């Protein structure tokens, strides 16, 4: 769990030890006739069954913050992986400082002056800042005082406020992120790619990060800022490139657009918006969670802090929240994959707090996990075996203790047909399908055992628009038939469109109810970041 406590050392404190700021100027700008820092032209990348990027073209001016925005699954990550040499484009050219570069590996990218700060930090807690920074770059300045001086110099020039000798394990999230940035600068990068850098930060830390980006910019560093949070992008970026369904839609100046227009560019007008019909909520309680507490690691702040909720038959309860505020843990506790410190979970009137995951699933809880590759699929197993997964004790998959392969295969054929899973056969491995088709198979599988409760975490994450619409239809249909749905999503439109009630989770606590007919994305956004705490009573 990332620690959200604002635990940042004063960033601007002068360090006396590095009086001798070396003569090396802060990242000299060897400009080739003022060419853009990065130029992408006609970048296309195909994956099996899906074109991740199609004819992506844009250029980034030197010394600016350039934002790339797009929905989850729009192809931002693939694009950045191409720029960082992790993936190679099938077509198109990349120019850095006006020169065409061929990036075969991250090492090539670093040599070309491109560095990446990943969303999930790659730092060793038990090493000091200095050790983390020089790890893998020992050849540059050694591992001793020379390296320490260089770190100090970079920290001072870009006002990062990094102390090379503290243990990384003692630092907060914001400070860790600055170390990641410093790591990349240390390796000589002039172009920084930040992948969703604010996803793990609390609002104060976000402001601090934005201050740092301005400092970097002033020193001639170019920043590529990946995000899907429009208000942040409008605040920090000098120009914004919008990506939709793998291709660049437009590049705009933040002064010429508002969030509304940007959102329209991002989702496109053809996007079906999820809307619920009239309420189907009954008064029959199907899932009840009572005062759930899950202690933090090492006695830290509890990850879940007194969560109570009730879902009735025919009701969709949506949970909004910034990632890492306890959503994942709440799901795992309800599914019996994790033992809560205290509190109870009831399915109907049965107390399932002490049940195992299998009993809970057999009792009629369908589960669409957040990370389908890790939790919902056996990627190297054929589709029909994946159809059994999670229901390997139930018909038609088994007869007694024996696998009913014929039954499972026949039912997989049915799911493929009814849920429109695009596959040449049920014998191909799950890993060879596109994300949307994998998800349709998972939803088909979960719905095939007539669940009473469905726990759905980010059910449309990373799936294409067509699959998204059909997944929404399935959830709505199930709701009409009296299913109780716990919907966890980062997509506020999805939450507002599907839910009967919305609640916001922040630092392990649930807010009061929001009425999806009244609430706006802005209201939810405020509650998610804690800005609305004063108005909201729990």
């Amino acid at each position, binding site marked *: 769990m990332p620690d959200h406590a604002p635990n940042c050392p004063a960033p601007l404190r002068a360090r006396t030890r590095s009086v001798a700021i070396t003569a090396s100027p802060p990242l000299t700008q060897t400009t080739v006739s003022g060419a853009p820092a990065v130029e992408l032209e006609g970048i296309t990348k195909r994956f099996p069954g899906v074109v991740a990027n199609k004819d992506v073209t844009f250029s980034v001016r030197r010394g600016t913050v350039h934002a790339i925005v797009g929905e989850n699954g729009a192809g931002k990550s693939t694009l950045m992986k191409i720029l960082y040499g992790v993936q190679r484009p099938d077509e198109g050219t990349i120019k850095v400082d006006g020169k065409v570069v061929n990036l075969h590996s991250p090492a090539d990218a670093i040599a070309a002056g491109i560095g990446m700060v990943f969303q999930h930090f790659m730092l060793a807690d038990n090493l000091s800042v200095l050790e983390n920074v020089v790890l893998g770059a020992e050849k540059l300045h050694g591992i001793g005082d020379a390296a320490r001086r260089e770190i100090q110099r970079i920290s001072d020039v870009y006002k990062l406020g990094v102390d090379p000798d503290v243990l990384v394990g003692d630092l907060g999230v914001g400070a860790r992120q600055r170390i990641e940035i410093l790591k990349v600068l240390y390796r000589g990068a002039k172009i920084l790619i930040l992948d969703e850098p604010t996803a793990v930060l609390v609002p104060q830390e976000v402001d601090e990060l934005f201050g740092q980006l301005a400092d970097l910019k002033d020193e001639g560093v170019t920043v590529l800022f990946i995000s899907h949070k429009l208000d942040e992008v409008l605040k920090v970026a000098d120009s914004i490139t919008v990506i939709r369904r793998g291709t660049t839609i437009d590049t705009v100046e933040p002064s010429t657009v508002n969030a509304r227009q940007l959102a329209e560019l991002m989702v496109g007008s053809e996007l079906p918006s999820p809307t619920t019909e009239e309420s189907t909520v009954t008064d029959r309680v199907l899932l009840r969670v009572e005062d759930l507490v899950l202690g933090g690691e090492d006695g830290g702040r509890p990850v879940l802090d007194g969560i109570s909720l009730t879902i009735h038959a025919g009701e969709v309860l949506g949970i909004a929240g910034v990632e890492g505020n306890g959503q994942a843990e709440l799901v795992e506790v309800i599914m019996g994959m994790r033992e809560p410190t205290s509190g109870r979970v009831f399915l109907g009137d049965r107390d399932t707090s002490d049940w195992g995951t299998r009993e809970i699933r057999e009792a009629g809880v369908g589960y669409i996990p957040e990370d389908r590759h*890790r939790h919902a*699929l056996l990627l*190297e197993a054929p589709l029909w075996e994946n159809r059994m997964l999670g229901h390997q004790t139930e018909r038609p998959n088994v007869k007694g203790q024996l*696998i009913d392969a014929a039954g499972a295969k026949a039912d997989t054929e049915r799911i493929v047909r009814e849920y429109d899973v695009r596959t040449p056969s049920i*014998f191909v*491995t799950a890993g*060879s399908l596109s994300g949307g088709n994998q998800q349709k198979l998972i939803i088909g599988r979960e719905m095939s055992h007539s669940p009473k409760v469905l726990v759905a975490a980010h059910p449309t994450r990373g799936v294409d628009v067509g699959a998204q619409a059909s997944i929404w239809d399935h959830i709505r249909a199930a709701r009409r038939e009296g299913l109780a749905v716990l919907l966890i999503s980062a997509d506020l439109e999805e939450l507002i469109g599907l839910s009967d009630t919305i609640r916001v989770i922040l630092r392990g606590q649930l807010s009061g109810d929001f009425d999806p007919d009244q609430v706006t994305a802005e209201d939810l956004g405020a509650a998610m970041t804690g800005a609305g705490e004063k108005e909201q009573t729990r």
Partner: protein
Amino acid sequence: MNRLSPRRIGLALSAPLLALVVAFLITSLVLTLFGDPVLDVWKTILHVPKPRQTVQIINAATVYYLSAVAVAVGFRMNLFNIGVDGQYRVGVFAAAVFAGQAWLPGVFNIVVAIIVAMVAAGLWAGIAAYLKVRRGVSEVISTIMLNAIATGVVSWLFAKVAQRSEGSNITETKTIPESSQLLGLKLVPGATNRVFTLVVLAVIVGLVYWFVLGRTRFGFDLRATGRSESAAVASGVNVPRMVMTAMIASGALAGLVGMPQLFGQDHNYGTTIQSGLGFAGIGIALLGRNNPIGIAIASLLWAFLDIQSNALQIGVGVAQEIVYIIQGVILFAVVIAYELIRRTDLRLEQQRVARELAAQRQATTATEGASA
């Protein structure tokens, strides 16, 4: 379209064949470098075995097969049971002591002694399983340690129960009564020696292994855990219990490894006990890709190389240890080849799926276009 496409079978067979070729080349190179008669060595190893040798090969393969299946059970769920060697030792000792007492008549003595071996070896493996589940100790480390401890414990107990036969230095446990000794099967015409009767046991173990892993709920849970532990947990598999069961099952099978020899040849536990069987099993399970038929072929290959190389020292004056080089290179090559093949297979399948879906799409647009 089917699981068993010709492409897949071709890929599956190409890896071991490639590994054999690589092993052949590297061994030849080593022999040439050290001035050994390359041709004579290969002639000796690759000559058609005589009936007596055929029997020896089958017998050695039987033992290897049991050992490799024991390892494979763990492999299928990503458990590395390095401790088959120790478990086998504990099992065969327990069975020898039990059967030597002759409490039960004839076949009953054999059957119960086999069960004793499985229980003893299973419990021994259970220690490693418990440590992993409760204390998070890697089974690789604990089973290696338990191998050493098994050797010590068995030697200590052996000293308590062993007896010295008259007029010799050989110490051994009480010999199994004749009524419980298995004479062997005359399977190979022209051979004076016989195939272990308990080759039947290996066949049964192979069938049970295939059935349990491929056809039962338990087997599905086990394979799912091996493929993705996180997905197995989310699907409701109780992973700690699964680790416990699989490790103990692997150990119980390891207990069977010594049975064919105990009842068919040695008739007691003595200082001549064969060691290293568990480690051979690891290699054979790898080579056979944890598949019951594949393991059988790999066991026969291993036994073939072992037996055929016996004549090297006398025949061509080359140490028969050269066979370890061959076996080692085969393993290295096959592990690399399997991984390459696995990746190629995944990539080819992804491409095929993409291509066929694209073709489907085109077909639908074409028909729609025609009808419009």
